[in-house]
């Protein structure tokens, strides 16, 4: 017994050395990654609900043309779940946003959560644990890959609260490369969590332990030496996290450099949405003269604002909601269905009753570009907006 205690003490004393302790932390994380790669399901504590391809419904969002996946027979207490996983087809999530919408018994309006930036993995987790709108009985749960009509959603998983579930979530994030996930100007790294605590906090806590060990171990060395050792330990900790960030930065930069291989040449149109949006912009640039005025019909105000930048110097007329328009020279319709077009007569009728005689200039999937020949009287029976 004494021998075992002495042996344990000998091993424990190795932690006096910060380099060894830091190496132990790194090794521990590596083991966690390997452990996680064996698969999360055998850890038990199954999710509250899983909707896969056989039980997911799909529908089309009428106005914008985006396709939605919805959880069939959703009806669960939001208080039981910290959030929702959405699995998408591997390799399909590179440039898209994943949007989650839900409506609960406590609130009839649709609530929205978006994973906004450079999603580079095959799944996302919507952490709704501190979202005030995530409450009551959730009756409807929808997922969309925004700005991309082709919907690669494979599975929606309703997570549960609890240590095992949190561990599984953390390991899954680490195993799937969350460390090397996307960056944004909002948050650089959300960081994988372990038992609800982020990697940063874990390393900070580890450093705290290191410092405590240093102080205790060096109690015979005097206060000055202890202070200096603490500072060195902190600097080492900073460098460890700096290394983590540098690797993340390099992997993201490599992906960027593949996208933009030449110097000072890339067009900002390359940074947006999917191929349909780019095709729309290219069509406008090719067919609409720079001094022309235009209107864009799209349900998404983001598209309108981005288009405004990319179409310049062409003038966009009219605010988003079609009020007080003056007649534009061209109209571009992008994923917008609240209108009718009589191709035989060449008459375009908008949802508010305004009509134009037009000539179709270009038509591609999800978009149409029309030259306005003249305005027509408002259609009877249609309300002014």
């Amino acid at each position, binding site marked *: 017994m004494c021998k075992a205690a002495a042996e344990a003490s000998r091993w424990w004393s190795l932690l006096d050395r910060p380099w060894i302790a830091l190496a132990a932390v790194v090794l521990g994380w590596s083991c966690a990654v390997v452990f996680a790669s064996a698969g999360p399901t055998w850890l038990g504590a199954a999710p509250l609900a899983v909707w896969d391809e056989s039980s997911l419904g799909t529908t089309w969002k009428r106005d914008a043309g985006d396709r939605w996946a919805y959880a069939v027979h959703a009806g669960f207490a939001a208080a039981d779940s910290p959030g929702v996983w959405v699995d998408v087809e591997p390799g399909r999530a590179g440039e898209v946003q994943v949007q989650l919408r839900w409506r609960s018994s406590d609130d009839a309006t649709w609530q929205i*959560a978006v994973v906004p930036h450079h999603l580079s993995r095959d799944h996302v987790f919507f952490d709704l644990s*501190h*979202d*005030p709108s995530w409450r009551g009985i959730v009756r409807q749960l929808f997922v969309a890959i925004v700005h991309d009509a082709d919907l690669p959603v494979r599975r929606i998983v309703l997570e549960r609260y609890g240590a095992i579930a949190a561990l599984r979530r953390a390991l899954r994030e680490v195993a799937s490369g969350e460390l090397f996930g996307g*960056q*944004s*100007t*909002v*948050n*650089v*790294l*959300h*960081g994988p969590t372990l038992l609800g*605590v*982020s*990697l*940063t*906090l874990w*390393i*900070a806590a580890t450093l705290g332990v290191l410092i405590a060990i240093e102080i205790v171990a060096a109690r015979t060395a*005097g*206060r*000055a030496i202890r*202070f*200096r050792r603490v*500072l060195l330990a*902190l*600097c080492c900790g*900073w*460098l460890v*996290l*700096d290394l983590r*960030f*540098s690797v*993340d*930065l*390099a992997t993201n*930069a490599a992906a*960027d*450099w593949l996208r*933009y*291989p*030449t*110097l*000072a*040449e*890339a*067009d*900002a149109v*390359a*940074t947006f949405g999917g191929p349909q949006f780019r095709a729309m912009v290219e069509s406008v640039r090719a067919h609409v003269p720079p001094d022309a005025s235009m209107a864009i019909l799209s349900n998404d105000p*983001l598209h309108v*604002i*981005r288009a*405004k*930048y990319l179409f*310049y*110097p062409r*003038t*966009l007329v009219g605010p988003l909601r079609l009020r007080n328009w003056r007649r534009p020279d061209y109209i571009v319709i992008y994923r917008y269905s609240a209108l009718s077009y009589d191709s035989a007569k060449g008459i375009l009728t908008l949802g508010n009753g305004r009509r134009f005689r037009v000539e179709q200039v270009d038509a591609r999937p999800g978009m149409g570009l029309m030259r306005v020949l003249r305005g027509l009287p408002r259609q009877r029976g249609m309300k002014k907006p």
Partner: protein
Amino acid sequence: MNGYGAVALGVLVAGVFPCMVGALCLAPWLAGRTGDRLVAAGLMYPAGATLISLTMLGLGLLGLPLDRRSIGALALLAAAVLGAVAWRALVTGGAVAGESPEPPPSGLPRPIAIGLGTLVASKIVFVFFDVVRKPIEVWDAFAVWTMRAKVWSSRQSLVLDPADPFYLGGGARTDYPPHVSLLHAWVAIGIGEWNDVLVNLPWAFYYLSAVILIYAVVRRACSSDWAMVGAVGLSGLPLFVIHATHAGYADGILAVHFLAVAALGYTADCARGRADTDRVAWLVLWVGFVLSLPLVKLEGVPLMVAGALGLAARSSGTSGGSAKRRATALAAVAVTVAVAVVFALFNQALRNYVASTELHVGALRAVLLDLFAQGNWNILWFLFWGLIAVRFRSLRGSAAGRLALVVAAPFVPFLYVLCFTDAWRFAANQTADSRLFLAVAPAAVLFVVVAMAGIWRQARRR
């Protein structure tokens, strides 16, 4: 236009020219001792860029065309006049020290010093390489800053006619301060066309300036070893680096201007009697940078007040200082607060946030998570608040303490807006809080390094 030639022209317009303008303004400091020269080198770019913006703003408001020659000539002229006035007042008056003692020798083993230097250099090279490849891609750039710049540069005017569809640039928000858009526009005007990549170059130069500045200030106040620690810390601060490489937001630029304010206040605080450059010489620069804050972003207003607080603490705590110095410092504080109040009222009228006494716990939790549990800041905020807690007594009344006050003060208005007004949603969904705290993060790095150097020095004495 693309390739190496385009990049060279972009660097010339976006980097070299603003540095020339800044160098003219800062001539008295550049002519001073080595330590002062390094600090001035770190300030050259922000000073030059701000002066170019002001020149463009002046020309635009007068209805004159924003062309390359007018802007270039007027900015150089204004810089030369400012530099000459400062030279006459400071160098001739003996306020800038000409001689300096040797800085303390480096105690770092050579391989470690080389390793740290390589780390910093690699980050800087990386930022520049990344910036000259990627086009604008961040949301606010399109919505606000870049749209205006594209219009201003192509029209060579600020478009002051309300009937024009591109009135004031036509972005989603026309009421945001102009510096960032003017800087974008300057690059486009300078190179002769709009280039979605090259207009981002100022962000890389701001990043480089911040690293030089923190190195210079810490080297001047502490030692070259701790200066290297500061440069490593700031050059690898995750969100700061990302704002340099994903250019287009105003937050990184605001952070550099606030770093300049904090650094100049601290340097003025550390001025050591007659052998050193006079405090007034630094305060002149301090006033310039404080006034530049609201030109960058609306959040510059609380940052102005924070800077002024530090100066007020210095003035009230000085017993041996001359009446003239106190009067100068208090006048600077008064001007700052007056400008801040006017600007805050204007801002409040624009935003109209609804305040309440109810604490939004979700927002507070999100803020705490952001500061302490995510990867944006390394362990910066643990160190910052930890050092303040551990060293609270010794910080009181010291230059480092006043630096801590300047950095910590903006937390009060920021937390108030995020946790007690209807802006809490921007914190709860973590879209705004990180960028808000980015404004003070580089200055927090400065404090952390200075405080650690102080502890190290004390430990050595024992």
